[in-house]
């Protein structure tokens, strides 16, 4: 029995001794000077070469805090405030036929090793990437650039192979863009494609301090000469954040715990339930995009029900409309986001400038929109559906749901389509489908069944949405199976190996009305047969001559031309009529901020930057934060 006593004693000693090992959270860094951001594990931690595939994590601060390029767009902004000249001193200047682009660079910018940034760096970047086909922006530059030349230290001229009014977007960051390489470093490497660029030389306000070889954390320190950077030049005083730590924090539940323990100031991609827990348990020390329910920050992407338009049974717009009318979006919102969704009827995410440019002006058109079912004419749009969702969550969230309709629209979106099963039946009959009992048969007499593909646990909200939609279709005579594709989801979408799927093909600049971000890929020139890889974005393989015409007219417009928005409206109306995919909602992300040590985070009242930690715009947030004084 003595042995047992030894065992108990040992367990007791270990139990007591282990907590005694407790250490400060990050060795050597004062917590109140450190902003801690959740990042994914760096897949190639020893690498900082952002220009090589896999060469340098894009979400450990390297891209966000130390790289720089010509321009940024604030995805949350609108109007002129959304555009930010970074290394460039002014917006791009094109000649009349968009075959040359001239860029004026800012003077007085230096790399962190003291070398001046000049036009030669830009020229070197472009030429090096073109010369090395494996580099990340190589193909994109190769198809566009004929020559690039430095006129002087601060002027670069790009001569393009063909007219291209959107060429500058290659160097315009919303999330990512072609970053500028330091010529004086890379020209010393034998092969820029296989150079680790470790330690990285910074062109922006922060520089690498230390990192973990396993990719679990990276620490960035404010440069002593932060004023000599594009972002530093815009500041009146030194940023108060001295250190930025990007660290992994495990699964979404662990992230919530870490924030509640004040070990993570910025987190992202947590489940609605996690957000609600934080809002309930740490209301006094938490900020988020919206001050109350639904809390979420909407990314400028548009989760939708994608239809494979190349399949016979889904090639008729009437069939796609019928499936849209079988959906009760209120159930989808409640079931996927527990009501915290920002619903979208238009084929553009309801974020940033899309609200004043598209959603608000198009409400009247949407309300008056008529759909001929073959047996009747209906007006399917219900401008009050988001309002109804607000009412549904009011009993739970009470005062968090403001009575002001404008505020409610910011929180829940605008209207959506009424669930109208009778109209859906009329549309299917008009398309040659027949009813057999409670099920539908295709014009060929085959049972009309569907498989709805979702990614799965990686995006739980959208997987839940898929399940609810599949259930609603099944209940209305279209038996639908859910297929959880996991990591093969995007690949199967890519080669058209799906019938219907929950995903997004529409992303926008957010802060700019131009829709070329995704529209260019929608041109029929790029549609391939089933089984072949479809260029990104038009995964629904929608082919339409009217759409081609809109895209072609947009190509020859200047980026800031007012006609850009007019073409955007044309596209949106066409997308409503054709329903190539069913827009559901903005991609709401729950990204709460801990305000124990820092304040001044972006919010809907002060939308000066994107809040996602992976977005390069977060540099504007980092340099704007203020200390609370907590020790």
């Amino acid at each position, binding site marked *: 029995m003595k042995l047992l006593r030894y065992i108990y004693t040992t367990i007791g000693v270990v139990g007591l001794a282990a907590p005694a*090992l407790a*250490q400060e959270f990050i060795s050597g860094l004062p917590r109140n000077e450190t902003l801690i951001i959740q990042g994914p594990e760096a897949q190639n931690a*020893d690498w900082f070469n952002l220009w090589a595939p896999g060469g340098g994590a894009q979400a450990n601060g390297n891209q966000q805090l130390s790289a720089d390029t010509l321009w940024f767009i604030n995805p949350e902004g609108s109007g002129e405030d959304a555009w930010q000249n970074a290394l460039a001193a002014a917006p791009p200047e094109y000649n009349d036929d968009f075959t040359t682009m001239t860029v004026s660079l800012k003077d007085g910018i230096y790399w962190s090793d003291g070398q001046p940034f000049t036009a030669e760096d830009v020229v070197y970047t472009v030429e090096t990437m073109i010369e090395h086909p494996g580099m990340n922006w190589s*193909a994109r530059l190769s198809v566009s650039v004929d020559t690039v030349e430095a006129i002087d230290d601060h002027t670069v001229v790009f001569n393009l192979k063909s007219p291209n009014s959107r060429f500058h977007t290659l160097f315009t960051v919303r999330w990512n863009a072609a970053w500028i390489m330091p010529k004086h470093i890379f020209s010393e490497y034998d092969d820029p494609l296989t150079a680790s660029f470790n330690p990285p030389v910074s062109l922006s306000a922060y520089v690498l301090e230390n990192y*973990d070889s396993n990719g679990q954390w990276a*620490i960035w320190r404010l440069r002593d000469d932060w004023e000599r950077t594009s972002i530093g030049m815009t500041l009146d005083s030194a940023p108060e954040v001295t250190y930025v730590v990007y660290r992994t924090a495990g699964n979404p539940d662990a992230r919530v715990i870490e924030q509640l323990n004040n070990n993570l100031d910025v987190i992202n991609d947590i489940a609605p339930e996690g957000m609600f827990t934080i809002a309930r348990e740490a209301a006094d020390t938490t900020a988020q995009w919206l001050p109350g329910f639904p809390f979420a920050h909407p990314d400028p992407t548009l989760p939708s029900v994608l239809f494979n338009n190349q399949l016979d049974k889904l090639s008729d717009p009437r069939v796609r409309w019928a499936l849209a009318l079988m959906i009760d979006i209120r159930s989808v919102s409640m079931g996927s986001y527990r009501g915290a969704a920002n619903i979208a009827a238009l084929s553009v995410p309801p974020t940033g400038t899309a609200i004043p440019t598209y959603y608000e002006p198009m409400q009247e058109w949407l309300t008056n929109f008529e759909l001929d079912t073959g047996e009747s004419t209906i007006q399917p749009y219900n401008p009050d559906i988001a309002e109804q969702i607000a009412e549904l969550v009011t009993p739970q969230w009470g005062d968090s749901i403001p009575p002001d309709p404008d505020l409610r629209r910011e929180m829940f979106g605008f209207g959506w389509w009424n669930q109208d099963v009778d109209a859906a039946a009329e549309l299917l009959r008009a398309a040659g489908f027949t009813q057999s009992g409670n099920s539908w048969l295709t014009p060929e007499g085959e049972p009309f069944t569907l498989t709805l593909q979702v990614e799965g646990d990686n995006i739980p909200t959208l997987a839940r949405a898929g399940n609810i939609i599949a259930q609603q279709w099944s209940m209305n005579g279209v038996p639908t199976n859910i297929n959880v594709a996991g990591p093969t989801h995007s690949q*199967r979408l890519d080669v058209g190996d799906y019938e219907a799927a929950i995903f997004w093909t529409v992303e926008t600049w957010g802060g700019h009305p131009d829709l070329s971000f995704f529209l260019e890929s929608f*041109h029929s020139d790029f549609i391939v047969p089933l089984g072949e890889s479809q260029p990104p974005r038009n995964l629904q393989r929608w082919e339409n001559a009217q759409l081609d015409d809109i895209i072609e007219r947009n190509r020859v417009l200047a980026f800031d031309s007012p006609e850009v928005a007019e073409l955007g409206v044309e596209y949106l109306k066409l997308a409503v009529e054709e329903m190539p995919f069913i827009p559901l909602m903005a991609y709401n992300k729950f990204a709460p901020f801990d305000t124990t040590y820092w304040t001044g985070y972006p919010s809907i009242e002060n939308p000066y930057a994107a809040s996602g930690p992976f977005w390069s715009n977060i540099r504007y947030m980092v340099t704007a934060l203020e200390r609370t004084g907590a020790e």
Partner: protein
Amino acid sequence: MNTLTAYILKRLGQFVFVIFTGVTLAFFITNLSPVDPVEQSLTQLTSFGASDPRAVQMMRDSLAELYGLQGNLFEQYINFWSRVIRADFGPSLSAFPTPVSTLILNAAPWTVGLLLLSILITFVLGNTIGALAGYFRKSRMLRVLGLGIMTINPVPHYFIGLILLIMLGYVFPLFPISGGAQMNIPTGFNWAFISSVLYHGFLPALSLVLAGLGGWFIGMRSLVSNIVTDDHVIYAELGGVPGRKIFSQYVARNAMLPQFTGLAMQIGQIFGGTVIVEFLFNYPGMGRLLIQGIYRGDYSLVLGVTTISIIAVAVSVLLIDLLYPLIDPRVKLE
């Protein structure tokens, strides 16, 4: 050729066959995966910016060439073996061009440390308590302890981990819930680093220990229960040999032999990592590496981890086979 030499040669032949078959199967199963590493990289490259569709095919071709994925499957298989023999698993596809061996070398010490320690603790505790419970069957304290262990035994280890994470990481925030060591601390053989590793590894190790205790406990208790009724034990008792000596020299010692086989097998499996616990506690080991490789379609990485795991298990089995005739007189070569 004498019997011992023939035995060793036979076992070595089996060893080579097991590795060849295991690695070959791993290669073809991995390559049959629907996840395409080129498409995974392309998705990443084109997800967050406007892309000219004409450029996408160029990118696809460049990546296939860069990743060395050209050639048919058989050519890739031959190429793979020629590299494995040189202990080179090629570059990681998701962390190109970092060699897979570098990623494994970074992750392996964490997993080996965590698993080796928790396996040994579990082995010692489980067997000790099991042996005592089997020998002192009337002890109330041991019965209670046994009941506790048997209650925990069927609980999945990820659930135990989750409970520990919530209880000791949040409700009573005594331990860190993420990472292998404190951030920004110099890695090396010094107390600051070692204590930090122990502190960070405590919860994952505890979840593994609690989850693994039952198996050893049940096995050892059964073995001891059988042995105490053997003639030589009864004879020793009748002969007045002290109970402590009977327990340690006659019972526990004999019962331990099969347990060592299990121990060797578990140690051999260390290189596969413990996926769920590492995922749960965000521990930087081989399990996490493997999961990342699977999700990113990184064949090279998955094959590297799998191959090392197969070799480690095969080596363990070989060692057991070779050592058993030496340590257990009951095992005969013929």
